[in-house]
């Protein structure tokens, strides 16, 4: 769990919340992503920092009431892997 991740620069993304979903338009690719929680929250707490999945989970715990903190790190890691494949997060 020591792998570091960094979110794509926020100026390259447009986040637009709708209802239960959030749109993320990626300027570099022109692709519109539609994501659900906790992805917007993950990107928000990552900011511009290079962080591990545990770091991100910690920041989420500080900012949000996590219902099941037991496997939160696993969920965050799974989302990070998906976000890497979409180009919204990079491995550092």
């Amino acid at each position: 769990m020591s792998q570091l991740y960094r979110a794509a620069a926020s100026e390259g993304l447009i986040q637009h919340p709708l209802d239960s979903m959030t749109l993320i338009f990626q300027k570099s690719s022109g692709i519109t992503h539609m994501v659900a929680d906790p992805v917007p929250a993950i990107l928000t707490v990552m900011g511009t920092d290079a962080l591990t999945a545990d770091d991100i989970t910690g920041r989420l715990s500080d900012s949000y009431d996590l219902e099941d903190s037991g496997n939160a790190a696993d969920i965050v890691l799974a989302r990070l892997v998906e976000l890497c494949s979409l180009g919204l997060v990079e491995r550092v």
Partner: protein
Amino acid sequence: MNLQMALGWRRHLLLHASSVEKDGKALLMTGLSGSGKSTLSAMLAEKGWRFMGDEFALLNPDTGMLHSFPRLISLKNQAIATMQAIVPENRFGPLMKGTPKGDIRHVKPPLDAVNKMKDAAKPALLLFPRFGHDPALRDIGKSEIFVRLTQASTNYVALGETGFRALTQFVDTVPTRAMDYQSGDQAEELIDSLWSKLP
């Protein structure tokens, strides 16, 4: 012509939708083939609305205004008889029977639609009509509306960020309902009920 329009146009966000206007406000209708969007726009055009188009609605990404694209209206199957009951015969073209899409007959839009085709209108209501079901109006979540409209747009991807901003603004500001109906009268009643409550 439609293909050229669908693939080449960049000045507006193109929505595969019919539209009519009243009091400067536009009603858009989009849905699958057979939903009745074309017939409904043609019918409303004979009942006090200005016909803006039955194929493409052109959304200006800078102003959010809707521009018209009135052309011949392509009626299919039972819509032909419906429109023959309310439109003079001299506005119809020849009946083409047994095409791959069934019987087809074109009708000219009212002259008013062509004379005012440069008049833009503010999008005020979006409907997803569905013909053949008990009359009903249903709310739809914004996520579903957004996805359906990207599917209904022929140039959303080509417009990039401009298209994204235009479509999200549209979804955020234009009231939207799914509408089931079994007859033109039912649809007109449902539309009037929604229209009368608009700000």
